[in-house]
């Protein structure tokens, strides 16, 4: 279904990643945003605050990130697409309610414009060290989807993807930008509404007397009922059954957790997305994401000029991780090289999936800036030996 | 037959015009947890705790003053278990009509 015209600022623009993300949200049909200011993400909500009153959206600056996350879950239950925006410290605060969103199966988008951490860290400088937290941050077993854009244009496009994925799988989607992409200004082309695919909320057509809130369909995703439409459902963060009633039993826990996790795991093939380039016959494959993917381009060119056969896998959907492809490649190449602006996070996934058949070499950067391409080149040269 | 004999200290001037409501107490015995709120706060002292046990082992209340319930619903409001309520009994003419009864009922819940 096409996007609602009111939110789409069709045309060519010169925007930074944060603004582009805000535009993407509005184009995707988001009409409720609650946030708390935190550098470097604040521009997203500032943009939204300026445009929402003109298109029927509501933006409210809440008193903290916990409230922001709780508010967007509440808003999502009225059927409204909702989003919150934060960075590392706020992401940590939101974790409990991200778990609530996962448990209640509430579609929503959480934008994390990553900065140097841990704790207060480097508020205005880039990091990519929240990637594992996006996957494992809240307690308990659950799965989420995370995306990683590398440019303001992708910040626009992939925000729409994020909303669509959250609607399809009824899961909170983590939009893992980084400060570099967030604060980088580039040309962003926003297409016409009819060229934007928007997945609407999958509402049930059953009458209230027959409706149960957590009966899964063939994709393990239940249908949705809006608060205020007369369904009078109950939903809870406690382990619950298909009626939404809390049930404290081993069986209910098993059924519930299995479905919450399998909802993503078994559908991973449909969700996983990455850019792949020259991996056939490669000796070394780079696995990159976010701003590092762009820095790595320089390194790849240099390495190729030196005769190394280098392939690239650029993660677009970071979680679920493209396990299958990494496993396949591991048997055919010498090594994976994983540059990231952290001290080793996604490299652990690569290593796990490689199962020892290829080494996974980390090119770390503790944060505050982007890699020196020569570091990546040197790692590639080492790996190719 | 007239209603139950009521003694007034001073007879209200409109006694023959005012219909004192009559109510019928229904007790959902198996929901009761024996808290005694209804017994304590019934303004007409219609209830007392019985010696029987309900299915959970509590003593539910029972109606001891038949015909005295005035359908004020206080027991119904104060009961935390939703286990007791009163229903109006329709009168036939002022001050007349069948006397009210209390009835303990088991409404199908554990």
């Amino acid at each position, binding site marked *: 279904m096409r996007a609602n015209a009111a939110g789409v600022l*069709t045309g060519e623009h010169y925007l930074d990643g944060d603004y582009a993300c805000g535009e993407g949200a509005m184009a995707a049909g988001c009409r409720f945003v609650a946030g708390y200011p935190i550098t470097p993400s604040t521009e997203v909500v500032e943009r939204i605050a300026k445009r929402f009153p003109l298109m029927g959206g509501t933006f409210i600056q809440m008193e903290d990130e916990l409230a922001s996350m*709780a508010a967007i879950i509440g808003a999502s239950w009225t059927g409204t697409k909702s989003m919150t925006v934060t960075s590392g410290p706020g992401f940590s605060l939101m974790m409990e309610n991200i778990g609530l969103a996962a448990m209640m199966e509430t579609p929503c988008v959480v934008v994390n414009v990553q900065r140097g951490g841990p704790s207060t860290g480097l508020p205005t400088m880039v990091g990519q060290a929240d990637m594992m937290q996006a996957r494992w941050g809240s307690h308990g077993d659950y799965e989420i989807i995370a995306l990683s854009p590398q440019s303001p244009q992708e910040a626009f496009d992939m925000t729409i993807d994020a909303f669509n994925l959250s609607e399809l799988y009824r899961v909170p989607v983590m939009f893992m930008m980084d400060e570099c992409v967030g604060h980088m200004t580039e040309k962003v082309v926003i297409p016409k509404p009819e060229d*934007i695919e928007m*997945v609407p909320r999958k509402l049930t057509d059953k009458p209230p*007397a027959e409706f149960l809130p957590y009966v899964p369909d063939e994709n393990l995703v239940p249908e949705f009922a809006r*608060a205020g439409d007369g369904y*009078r459902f109950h939903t809870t963060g406690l382990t619950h059954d298909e009626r939404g*009633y809390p049930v404290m039993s081993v069986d209910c826990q098993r059924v519930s957790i299995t479905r919450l996790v399998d909802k993503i795991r078994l559908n991973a093939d449909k969700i996983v997305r990455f850019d792949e380039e020259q991996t056939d016959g490669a000796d070394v494959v780079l696995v990159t994401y976010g701003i590092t993917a762009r820095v790595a381009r320089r390194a790849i060119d240099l390495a190729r000029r030196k005769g190394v056969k280098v392939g690239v896998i650029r993660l677009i959907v970071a979680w679920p991780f493209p396990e299958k492809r990494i496993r396949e490649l591991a048997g055919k190449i010498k090594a994976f090289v994983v540059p990231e602006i952290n001290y080793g996070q996604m490299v652990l996934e690569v290593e796990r999936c490689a199962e020892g058949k290829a080494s996974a070499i980390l090119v770390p950067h503790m944060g505050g800036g982007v890699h020196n391409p020569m570091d990546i080149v040197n790692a590639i040269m080492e790996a190719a030996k | 037959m007239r209603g139950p004999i009521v003694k007034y200290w001073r007879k209200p001037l409109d006694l023959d015009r005012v219909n004192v409501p009559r109510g019928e107490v229904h007790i959902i015995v198996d929901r009761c947890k024996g808290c005694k709120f209804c017994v304590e706060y019934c303004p007409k002292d219609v209830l007392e705790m019985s010696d029987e046990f309900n299915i959970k082992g509590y003593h539910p209340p029972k109606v001891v003053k038949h015909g005295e319930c005035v359908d004020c619903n206080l027991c119904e409001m104060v009961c935390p278990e939703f286990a007791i309520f009163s229903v109006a009994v329709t009168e036939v003419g002022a001050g007349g009509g069948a006397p009210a009864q209390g009835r303990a009922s088991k409404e199908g*819940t554990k």
Partner: protein
Amino acid sequence: MSKAVKQTAPPVAPPEPELPAEPQHPVTPYLRMDRIPHIWCPTCGIGTVVRCFVDALVQSKVDLDKTAICSGIGCTGRVAGYLKLDAFHSTHGRPIPFATGLKMARPELLVTVFSGDGDLVGIGGNHFIHAARRNMDILVVLVNNFIYGMTGGQNAPTTPLTAKSSTMPFGNYERPFNLPHLAESCGATYVARWTSLHVRRLTKSFREGIKRKGFRFIEVVAPCSTLYARLNKLGDGFNLMQFYHDTAVVMNGADTREAAIDFQQRIICGKFVDEERPTFIDMMHEHYEKVLGDRYVPTPPEGGMIQGLEDEPSRATEQPKKASKRKPSKGAAVKGGDDGAK
């Protein structure tokens, strides 16, 4: 004082088992009867508060389809599970922002927060004061049993001085909140306190709260038998009810600064604040209309959800658009999954 409504309404729930033609408890159509009996202890006061609330909802004749309940964690937090309304049992301390999201995204809803003292003013304290400050249009019912009951009787922000709890086994030496004063000073426009014994006044207060707008706060002092009463050797909930009977005083309009509760001292009940002030949403609308005029598009009362192919015509936006005679950029026509959008 009006009676409970006779339940001639047909049950909305899965059909009840066949009963002989006996009258049902008036609360039956409004509770999830498949979950009754509830989990609260004998002589706990929460059931009473729920009964009064249901009565008030029915008497107020509000559209129950448009009424939503949010609860937090705790004994009172379980209320959402028993009411047959759109009910949300959120995380500890967060029902107020959850309710804020519900209300802001679908303004026609009547949103009530029903939770306990520890949940709303302990962990949820920050949200409480800000929602009151903003005059957010929600009704907050706080059942105050002076303790964290569900988790075994720990000290709460409302536990009176010298009272014992499991984390203050020698008695509380920490000053508690004076809740009506807290609510009033943060800007609540309706503040009342009752005990669960004051069933009729409480029901009336609920009715008033349901009808009013703005941040409405009703504190209900209720007995906690298994923890508060037991740990402080006060008997059980019945004894606490007797205590309320003997010592609670009704002082409508009293100064909330005097409304603090000391251990086993008098409890001042009443309606303390009843004002009409513009709510958060009122102020938002008014301000945007003034500043943006015709360009302002408010969120419609039925919510900002966008469904269906009939879209609104393009609205004027802040920036001029360039002619868009180009093919969509890479990745513009995006699909959520390769199986296609549903």
